[in-house]
């Protein structure tokens, strides 16, 4: 298997943990794995990304533009920002809920989230929209947005892993008291 995956969002949304879960799934299957992510000052409310490269043949942890199989966008504008990395027939899974930047609240910059979603639909063949607000409200925790989005990627078939792979990773990595919540989050897209 060879997969190039990008997770993107705003600092604090849980992209790093989601990237760890995918990496663990790759390690469990003994696949070569490289990742890179944003750490440091940019995490304070800035745009963040994780690049994940699975399988033989990759050297650097950064995915070149136009090579990603899958982008999981935790936020509409951030998904558009990373779109140049997607390969022509790639898949985008995107949370519809925007995170408004301080600069937009202050009126210093414009941000129209609906225009971002429209742009994605016009320019990407495989777009999967996730109602992250609805999902986290139904599940009762805003912390599991990342696992809901992973579940959506799983459903799309573009993730390259099976539900069993991810269930195993949750079992290994999530504390017992949050396990059931995360399991429900993983299957939310399928069961909604």
């Amino acid at each position, binding site marked *: 298997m060879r997969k190039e995956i990008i997770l993107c969002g*705003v*600092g*604090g949304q849980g992209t790093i943990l989601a990237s760890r879960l995918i*990496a*663990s799934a*790759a*390690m469990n299957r*003994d*696949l*070569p*794995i*490289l*990742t*890179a*992510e944003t*750490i*440091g*000052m*940019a*995490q*304070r*409310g*800035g*745009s963040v990304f994780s690049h994940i490269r699975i399988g033989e043949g*990759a*050297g*650097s*942890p*950064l*995915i*070149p*533009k*136009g090579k990603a199989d899958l982008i999981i966008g935790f936020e509409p*504008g*951030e998904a*558009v*920002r990373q*779109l*140049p990395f997607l390969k*022509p027939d790639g898949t985008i899974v995107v949370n519809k809920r*925007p*995170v*408004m*930047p*301080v*600069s*937009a*609240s*202050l009126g*210093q*910059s*414009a*941000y*129209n989230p609906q*225009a*971002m979603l429209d*742009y994605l639909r*016009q*320019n990407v063949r495989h777009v999967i929209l996730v109602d992250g607000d609805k999902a986290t409200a139904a599940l009762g925790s*805003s912390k599991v947005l990342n696992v809901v989005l992973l579940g959506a990627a799983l459903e799309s078939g573009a993730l390259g892993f099976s539900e069993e792979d991810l269930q195993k990773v949750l079992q290994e990595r999530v504390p017992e008291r949050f396990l059931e919540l995360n399991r429900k989050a993983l299957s939310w897209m399928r069961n909604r």
Partner: protein
Amino acid sequence: MHKEFLMGNEAIAMGALAAGVQLVAGYPGTPSTEVLETIARRNPGNVYVEWSVNEKAGLEVAAGAAYTGARALVTMKQVGLNVASDPLMSLEYIGVKGGLVVLVADDPGPISSQTEQDTRTFAMFSKVPLFDPCSVQEAYEMIQEAFDFSEKYGTPVFFRATTRIDHGYEGILIKDPQEYIRHEAQGFIKDSSRWVIFPRLSVRNHALIEKRNDELSDTLSEYPGNRILFETGAGCQKGIATHGINFMYTTDSLEGRNARILKIATPFPFPEKLALSFLEGLDEVLCIEELDPVIERALTFVCGKYGLKVKIRGKLTGDIPPAGENTPELVDRAVTGLLGPAAGRASAPETLPEPPALPVRPPVLCAGCPHRASFLAVKEAMKGKKTIYCGDIGCYTLGNAAPLDMCDTCLCMGAGIGIAQGVGHIEPDTSCFAFVGDSTFFASGITGTINAFYNQANMTLVVLDNSTTAMTGHQPHPGTGRTVMGQVVEKVSIEKVLLAIGLKVVETVDPLDFQAAVETTKRVAAQPGVKAIIFRSPCISVIRPEGKSHVDEKKCIGCKKCIKSLGCPALTLDSDGKKARIDDSLCTGCTLCEQICPADAISGGRKNGLAAGKEEA
């Protein structure tokens, strides 16, 4: 051996443990911090680990350990090396007995630093050999070799990686604890002719160091980290010389294109013999480097020395940008410029139409950050007065952003205190403020404060004490009463330090009590000489909120004062754009918006901070 998915910095730490390191010291700094944290977390029990007060202290502690024959590691970011450069320059003349590795994380971009300095250039200047790995796996192995090398040649060595290695992850093979080298230190043996630096020793050792480094150039030509790959035959006319992560970008981009590749892991001492075999028969070499053109200069020198007619290209010829981080795309363009496009690749990639305006997200102070309250209090207290707000290095540098706009200068760790003095000496009518964080105060703020007090400066020192080293991920420091090894120790009191220097006015206040903070600032800033305010309130990630603030829509008059004066990420407008709204997932209950709301429309926030005005015992 077993396989683990590790961050580059974690791999470096595990490699140091496998090499039998006995003492590790350092000061936090992105992208280096996780090395020391991992050593502390994975400590097999026999390693002494400390967060030192700054990099100079850390290097000196590590040098002492290496004098006894122990293996020691000191960790820092590239600008931290400037702080540690005084002991390092001399230590190279003295040498070491146990292996001493100076780990420096360079930050091309820069992503979270003040400068784009290149430690490879520093290696040349200080004459200290340097290792520069190209992947997480190589970093794990190379740091073990670096310890052996340091011990064998009796010199400290640099181990330098850049952000994409430090913060890259890879599933790699590492040793089990029972495979770690066990190292016994012989102990310090008195010998003043060896350990005491005097001019006579310096001139003697200087000559020996130059001779050794010449010899090491030959030794390192055989070192497997330095190597020639792919087209090694006589027919090949084009070459690429590269290093670190750029080696990976280069090999990723080749896609069957033929070139001779020179990978350099030890740019200093430069492996000249290896470079000569690389250059043999080539017409043209492209040097793909980040930061300084170190390899490019070395190859140009080799061509001049041996009269070779090989065209050396890179940063000095404008083929590679002089500044900034390289990307896979940039490297691919450079490779294509040298070798032409890869066979079978579409000549023009599919282009997307111009997207709508993307959200602008510069980093901002977190929702509920006590620094926001401190800045707002000083801004309010000094309204209408001529002021300068000298900032410093830490999360609070973000106080420069609108709407706070409370950081007029920022230079390096602790510099704000000196700059405030200098401005004050020339502009006596300006109220000069220096903002410094608690960790930065201990690292390099105390000498500046003594300088101010002794030299009769007129300034207000503002210590933003959030009880942690927040920017780099919450490391303990002398004011926290904890060490990285988990000991509970006596806290160093910032108040007592300032009073001991001689300051007469030192007031502590909780910045989240807005009125008290404003009044304290007015009172203190009106005093003559050097005076200090300590704004004490823990970082939001240290204390959990007990209640979050909510906007009462009926009471909100839509004046947007909360949004426009605070710039808090939790505060936005509702979907009609009429009234303020608080994002429940971000609010930390700091209540600052409640205190400044003119309509009394916000309530519910509660936070159990440290009691203001009282010092913890």
